[in-house]
């Protein structure tokens, strides 16, 4: 089947199998390998991207469901010369180690900040409970989200 969608601002029309997952479309068809796959039970959040501005686990969305949608991946939010405030805060606060959870964590964190007011440490922890990180113990991730939040308003 054909799927037409906008990814990081460019439009793509792709021929995919009906059961193709959005994450596979991104990784295998478009070679956007910044979005990762960490599990097979929709538990880890490594695959998180934005679909029409809200974070989704792209391993749990069919490519077909994304037909007509605007997708933003980690590759689409900033560049080394012009980092998104959340990317910059992750680096500043040492909120990543191996980097595997990081793209999904950043995409979730951006949505969290955009969709909530008055985040405190507890609220950030609860808001990110769908994203697993095995390296950082989350402490610095919480720091990073709270650092980026005011800069995103």
């Amino acid at each position: 089947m054909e799927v037409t969608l906008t990814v990081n601002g460019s439009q793509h029309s792709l021929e995919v199998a009906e059961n193709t997952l959005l994450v596979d479309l991104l990784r295998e068809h478009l070679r956007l390998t910044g979005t990762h796959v960490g599990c097979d039970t929709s538990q880890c959040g490594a695959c998180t991207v934005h679909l029409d501005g809200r974070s989704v686990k792209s391993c749990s969305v069919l490519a077909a469901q994304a037909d007509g949608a605007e997708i933003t991946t980690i590759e689409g939010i900033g560049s080394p010369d012009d980092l998104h405030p959340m990317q910059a805060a992750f680096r500043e606060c040492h909120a990543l180690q191996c980097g595997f959870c990081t793209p999904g964590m950043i995409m979730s964190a951006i949505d969290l900040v955009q969709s909530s007011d008055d985040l405190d440490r507890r609220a950030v922890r609860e808001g990110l409970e769908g994203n697993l990180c095995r390296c950082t113990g989350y402490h610095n991730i919480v720091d990073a989200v709270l650092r980026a939040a005011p800069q995103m308003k």
Partner: protein
Amino acid sequence: MAEAIESGIGAPVRRKEDMRFITGEGRYTDDFSQRGQVYAAFLRSPYARARLDSVDASEALAMEGVLAVLTGQDMAADGFGDLPCGWTVKQKDGSDMVTAAHPPLAHSIVNYAGEPYGLVVASSVAVARRAAERVITEFTELDAVVNPALAMDSEDIHAGVVGNLCYDWELGDASATDAALAAAAHVTRLDLTNNRLIPNAMEPRAALGIYDPGTGEHTLYTTSQNPHLERLVLSAFVKVAPEHKLRVIAPDVGGGFGSKIFVYPEETAVIWAARKLRRPVKWTAERGESFLADAHGRDHVTHAQLGLDEQGRFVALKVQTTANLGAYLSLFGSSVPTYLYGTLLAGQYKTPNIHVEVHGVYTNTAPVDAYRGAGRPEATYVVERIVEIAARELGMDPVELRRRNMIQPADFPYQTPVALVYDTGDYEASLDKALQLIDYAGFPARRAAAAVAGKRRGIGLSCYIEACGLAPSKLAISLGAGVGLYESGEVRVNPTGSVTVFTGTHSHGQGHETTFAQVVAARLGVDIDDVELVHGDTGRVEFGLGTYGSRSLSVGGSAIVGALEKVIAKGRRIAAHMLETDVENIDFEEGQFRLRDSNRALSFGEVAFAAYVPADYPEDLEPGLSEKAFYDPENFTYPAGTHIAEVEVDVETGVVALVNLVAVDDFGILINPLIVHGQVHGGLAQGAGQALLEQAVYDEYGQLQTGSLMDYCIPRADDLPDFLVDTTVTPCTHNPLGAKGCGEAGAIGSPAAIMNALTDALGVNDISMPATSEKIWRALSG
């Protein structure tokens, strides 16, 4: 110069590697693809123990897109060797441990659920997986041995391994320990289990095998913490390919925690299949496969006795442990419950008599090997739990009891009764700082306030020590290691004065690209951005033993220091020639080769350029400025510290909240405190996971009941508190950086602290890890 100071030793430099990770440009094994690439799916045993009677692949082979079905039989026919264990443990009676053959792919018998016995290669992952389901395999199921405590009384799993006993190992003086226990004024006894864990690095294991028929070269991209060791084992033991025809590349790796040290069946099979089919073959584990077939960690059953005299001084510690090794010995599986465990049982204390006996047993479960801390968390758990309980039994303050027994700064070097010589430390300094950070004195008030709110609050300490910086080669080899444990480093100064550094260690989250660059930039006086670290590729780095045991900086960094000193020595000779003086008159500081007592100097860049454009150059010197060094440590390093936990239990529900977790660690000299604190945070999270959430559970048939992230609970952000971490410093005395290593401490100290806090809150001596709400609720209601 400002930049040099900001990036110097001890500066919290923001990581160089982060830019690619935060922009989605990291490159992990599964991100690499080759033209013509095909995909593997493994055939895995559904049984914990069974005879493999026949494999019928005809239906699978008839499917469109299926290229091959390869089995363990095929691999054996191709002359492949077994996966070796890299450490031969000597038993109590002097004989070698009993090793069960571990074929990369099972060919006649399977010994754990999930064990691979073949693979399907197909044009897509989906086809490969579907075809794997269509392979018809006949098994004869056999009785599985699952419980390590019963393994020695169960049917033998492996022919020739009597009582499933791999080894009966001991360390220390048994009779002196028994005599001291018999004479002790008080003996505390404790039965403990150290729960079995599944590492769960967020990046699942993966491998991409490439064969070039023109040159006969094999290239293996894989998720490895030690690509050179991987190449050595695959070449020398498994006979996959000669070492010079095999290149192993471990690109960005998404966490390891030990689980990616080992050489696994899957990467072995992938490179073999690539050669057979003349196509690049890729495999990436599904998380479910990680649960079944990554090496697990811990899994001890222990009985311990601590004897004390009237003054509360420890007189003897006797420990008997059964360690589950799983179905086969993984690469370092044998050494973890012995040399990395028994040797640490002195902890921070002057216990004069210690004896430990370990039965390493085979069971029909996944192989067990090093997981963050590897043996040292298990040792700390025994020591720090029993010390705490002794204090309770004697009605003493647990802090005071520890103080009374601690090795003091004046006692170093300190020879323990279990083989190690601690070089330095100041244990009370860490203890004092930790007590202050958690406001120990204020705890009774917090406890009382909690009680008013219907909650039970508890506090617990753990004063741990670890042996890191693996390892002095001669000692390790004399104890059974099959390889040296030195490290290599190379500093290649480019003609323009920038520096490329090569290390045999591997970074999979630890930030070596930054920390090592800080070391190099500080010593050479160059900008940190002009230093690039190369690691993880046997085609680019000469040799190395990889990253584990918190060794990278203390061993690998020291090798780089050795190479730096050679570069500087050569630079001084070049500078002396150019400044028309003797080499003794040249000092190197802050990036300048200076003629002493003059204002004449050459910059590092000028000397580098002269080395490659030797117009005016010493006659007896080779051009170029590139040096290598190997560093073999004299001793282990001994990071140590105090972790203190405070918990609050809801009496109605049994829900436990970890409210405070403090860690004060002595890692020696810190290069980058930002990275060090991050390492501690991650370790604390894994320690908290062990204490409160995580456990691998097999049922009586050997089926893994915790085979997904829905059944095996790794900590999420809302399970953990903010951490309070700090350090004290006694520099390591025997390496040039004074560094001890920081990667594992968090996971080593924290479980005992948390469990001491929880049992304090509940008023019981033990509750088994993980202390789930259900267990706590039962303890409260019972």
